């Protein structure tokens, strides 16, 4: 046992004298380790079980990570880690990890590989990339990525002259929302996290945002705090989510009609004079146009369109206004729903503006104020793009993160120019992009495909060369700028040496640069050296970060609320909140959101909606021991009455078939009162088709498999994915 009875009694005697059990377990990681003595080491680092970048502290005993705890100094974790963060050790010691470089030894897709040395693998990758760049031009090299490895390979591609780099986190997730808020406020609604002041909110409105299940640590801490304090939750969701279970108003809206509700609310807010007149006057432009445009959206109409009781529509928004501006309509996160999503996000932004939540306590705090000196470690500027990048497609407001499926389409068609090689780092494209058939087709048409990842996912196992990255507990990554109420800097550093023959992504990227003769873009020495120089450039004590607290605050950066001498700055053309968007109008889009009805499922068909589990991150963690144990497979939620009508019992395995005749794995039915009759729900990320993931393989069903249809948002290129209809086939 880790403690002696004598010590225990000593402590017990001490606490009888009034000692309090500490919430904050350490002041300095180094000091804590010294106090405990022995072979114990505490390493402050940043979690990567999801992308919230919580501060974590790894307890290392005899060179093994035995426990992960939340860093109390880090604003994203506040001393706590979620289930996934706790289970990070399971990722580190997962025996199914990629263990050494592999080179395809047979046809693509058959999964036959031979072990290779790093030198051989990287030489091959460099040779192939160079050859393709020579033959088709550097622009024929494309990259898709998620998370921290992206930076290192972006560097490689840019140095070679390609700008065809896309992150699914834009068009398949939150990019749409960011664009809409930039159009309205001139800022994204948050970078490290949504700038929602939940812990001080009196009313929180959630459109599909399933806090509790969408497990972003600090935001959930604040949400629970709000619930505990008795804040009112208005939850708009066709499914009775965990958040809905905490709500005063659950509005089980007909899927796809959220904008109808929002515009009606805006109408009520304006026509009943419930908006913040002074705020609107001072900070916004286009109020009159909005007032005029939303007149047609009456509660009677909305009740019909959304299938919500009119009284509920009216009462909920009045309750919201009663506590304005200390309220927030959450900007949401995953936004690629129906293909007209920018306008929904605009409506959310406009409603927030009318209620005056931006810069108000309980609303949305103002961006932290901090300037970081630019730092690129003396690397030269990148050569210009060989050809203009394709990543924005035909979407005027697509962001710099790129529209992933545009690169996929270009790979298949060769238009406007050929894309012949993919470098995919840290994203399982088969699971993140809609229509897997197209993803596969694109991969099949590549001349070269290299994957950098931790696990042999279905996407990785289609690559020609697989480069195994080590986990976040085994590597340095760049110093992270953390932008919460305050600005700060956090570190990721290894708790243990890389296991097997795996390498940090920075090293892989750097070595690749060297093999390509781009030495000036390679790391000067090692990443820690670079991080030290970066800290110096930013005026931060690296040792404080690395040895003691893992996170440092930028002084005086926290100015969350509007005061006389802390006025908001809006990055729009008008430097005001643009309720009416000239920018959108200029590109031929509706300057004020309009409601566009969408197609609804026919008889015996259900709209497929999907979401998240608090214990899993997309498809990344299903194989992680302690998380897999908690949730081995997903279920399809089916309304009780519909289930009775169809003769389906709770727990029965069924197969779903979508409008295109595509079927998923068998999946367990959850017969429930918790969902509307016209949709079915499942948690995203299951149903792996990856035999080397021994636990995760074939367990549960893959929603993405059924998402063969998607509607592109014309403004941003976001892929609306909740437009697929499924029928339920009882398993024989």
């Amino acid at each position, binding site marked *: 046992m880790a403690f002696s009875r004598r010590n225990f009694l000593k402590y017990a005697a001490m606490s009888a004298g009034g000692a309090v059990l500490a919430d904050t377990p350490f002041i300095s990681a180094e000091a804590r380790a010294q106090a405990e003595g022995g072979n114990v080491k505490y390493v402050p680092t940043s979690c990567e079980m999801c992308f919230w970048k919580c501060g974590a502290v790894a307890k290392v005993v005899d060179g093994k990570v035995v426990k992960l705890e939340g860093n109390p100094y880090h604003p994203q974790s506040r001393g706590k880690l979620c289930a996934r963060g706790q289970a990070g050790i399971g990722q580190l010691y997962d025996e199914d990890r990629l263990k050494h470089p592999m080179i395809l030894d047979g046809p693509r897709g058959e999964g036959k590989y031979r072990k290779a040395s790093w030198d051989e693998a990287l030489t091959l990758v460099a040779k192939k990339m160079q050859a393709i760049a020579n033959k088709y031009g550097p622009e024929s090299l494309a990259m898709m990525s998620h998370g921290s490895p992206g930076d290192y390979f972006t560097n490689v591609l840019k140095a070679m002259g390609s700008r065809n780099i896309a992150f699914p986190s834009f068009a398949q997730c939150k990019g749409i929302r960011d664009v809409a808020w930039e159009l309205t406020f001139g800022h994204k609604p948050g970078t490290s996290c949504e700038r929602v002041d939940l812990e001080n909110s009196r009313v929180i409105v959630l459109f599909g945002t399933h806090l509790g299940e969408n497990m972003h640590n600090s935001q959930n801490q604040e949400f629970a705090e709000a619930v505990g304090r008795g804040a009112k939750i208005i939850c708009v969701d066709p499914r009775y989510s965990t958040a809905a279970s905490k709500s005063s108003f659950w509005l089980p809206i007909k899927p796809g009609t959220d904008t109808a509700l929002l515009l009606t609310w805006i109408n009520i807010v304006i026509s009943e004079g419930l908006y913040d007149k002074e705020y609107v006057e001072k900070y916004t432009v286009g109020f009159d146009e909005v007032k005029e445009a939303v007149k047609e959206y009456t509660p009677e109409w909305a009740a019909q369109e959304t299938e919500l009781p009119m009284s509920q529509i009216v009462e909920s928004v009045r309750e919201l206004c009663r506590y304005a501006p200390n309220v927030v309509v959450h900007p949401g996160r995953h936004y690629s729903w129906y293909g007209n999503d920018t306008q929904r996000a605009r409506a959310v932004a406009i409603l927030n503006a009318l209620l005056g939540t931006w810069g108000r306590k309980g609303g949305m705090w103002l961006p932290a104020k901090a300037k970081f000196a630019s730092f690129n470690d003396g690397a030269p500027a990148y050569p210009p793009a060989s050809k203009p990048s394709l990543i924005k497609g035909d979407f005027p407001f697509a962001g710099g993160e790129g529209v992933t499926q545009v690169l996929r389409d270009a790979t298949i068609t060769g238009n406007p120019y050929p894309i012949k090689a993919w470098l995919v780092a840290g994203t399982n494209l088969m699971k993140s992009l809609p229509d897997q058939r197209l993803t596969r087709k694109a991969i099949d048409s590549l001349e070269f495909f290299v994957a950098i990842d931790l696990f042999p996912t279905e996407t990785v196992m289609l690559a020609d060369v697989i480069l195994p990255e080590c986990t976040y507990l085994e590597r340095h990554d760049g110093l992270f700028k953390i932008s919460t109420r305050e600005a700060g800097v956090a570190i990721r550093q290894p708790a243990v040496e890389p296991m097997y023959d795996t390498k940090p992504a920075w090293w892989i990227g750097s070595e690749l640069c060297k093999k390509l003769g781009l030495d000036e873009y390679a790391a000067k020495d090692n990443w820690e050296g670079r991080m030290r120089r970066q800290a110096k450039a930013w005026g931060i004590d690296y040792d404080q970060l690395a040895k003691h607290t893992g996170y440092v605050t930028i002084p005086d950066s926290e100015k969350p609320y509007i005061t006389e001498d802390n006025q908001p700055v809006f990055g729009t053309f008008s430097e005001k909140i643009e309720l009416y968007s000239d920018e959108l109008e200029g590109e031929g889009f509706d300057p004020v959101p309009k409601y566009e009805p969408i197609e609804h499922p026919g008889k015996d068909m259900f709209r497929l909606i999907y979401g998240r589990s608090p214990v899993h991150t997309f498809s990344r963690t299903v194989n992680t021991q302690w998380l897999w144990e*908690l*949730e081995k497979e997903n279920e399809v939620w089916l309304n009780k009455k519909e289930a009775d009508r169809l003769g389906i019992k709770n727990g029965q395995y069924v197969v779903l078939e979508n409008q295109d005749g595509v079927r998923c794995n068998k999946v367990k039915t959850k017969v*429930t*009162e*918790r969902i509307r009759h016209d949709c079915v729900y499942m948690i995203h990320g299951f149903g792996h088709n990856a035999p080397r993931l021994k636990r995760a393989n074939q367990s549960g069903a893959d929603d993405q498999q059924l998402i063969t249809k998607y509607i592109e948002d014309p403004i941003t290129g976001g892929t609306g994915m909740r437009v697929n209809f499924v029928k339920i086939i009882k398993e024989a």
Partner: protein
Amino acid sequence: MELSITGTNALTYPVMHVWDWRVAIYLFLGGLSGGLMTMSAINYLRPGRKGPLQSVCCWQIPVLAPILLTIGLIFLGLDLERKLHGYLFYTTFKPLSPMSWGAWIVLIIFPVMILYALAALPDEVKGGMKKGFIKNMADAMAPHLAFLAKLNIVFGVLLSIYTGILLSTFVARPLWNTAILPLLFLASGMSTGAAVMIIVAKSKEVKLFFTKLDIWLILGELLILALMFYGHYTGDAAHQAAIMPFFDSSHGHFPYFLSIVVVGIALPLAIVLKFLEVTGKHTEEVTGFGLFLMNSSAILVLIGGAIVRFALVYAGQLSGYGYTMM
């Protein structure tokens, strides 16, 4: 109610199955050996008994009792997760723990049983034995047979009752948590003891005596069983739910439903058979059909007794203050 639980242990969810057939066998054999102690002693001590005390008729019964108890304890031992730690039972005495009581009682009961078995050995058997410790002990004990028999009546009853006391103390398992359970196990133990007497005894007279006695024991057992169900039925929700499996023929509960049906047929049928036999005309010799009737009714009693133990051990673990009752 839609209930979902994350973080359950297979041992206790969706239903508890901590103890299995090994414990049921132990309880059955424990009760039976208690019954054998008492019944064989009654055979010696009953008024109107003819012939010498030591008799070739039923000397095997006192010998059988400790053997069956040993087998039962072996099954109980097999159920221990740490068999090598078994000695720890004897490093302490826990007055609140019926298990601790049981462990120590066994230490007293075995000598009582064994000395009794030695005392009961008839000369016909001892004649064939080599001289030695056992024969000397048997000779030394023989004069005390009557005393030892009285002692065995008491301890046999205690042993049979004890097998029910253990389960009845579990407040967490409403089906078991009734003071009538020890009585049920007592009646059942005695009844099965009588059944074995009937089967083993060679003398018609002994067989008939225990056949008569067993009618009362079975009636008692059935009455107690009915009272137990009645008690639960009139109890709180958890107690009511506890007996539900016995009255529910659906898939999950069918074995319990079946057990009640079988017990409900076997025991009354045994009574009828015994009644027929007792009221019939008898010769000195055991006739083929009479033997068949007596033995088959005895076997029905043993089956019934075993089913009662098995059903209660398993069904008791289904009962509880379930997750949704808290």
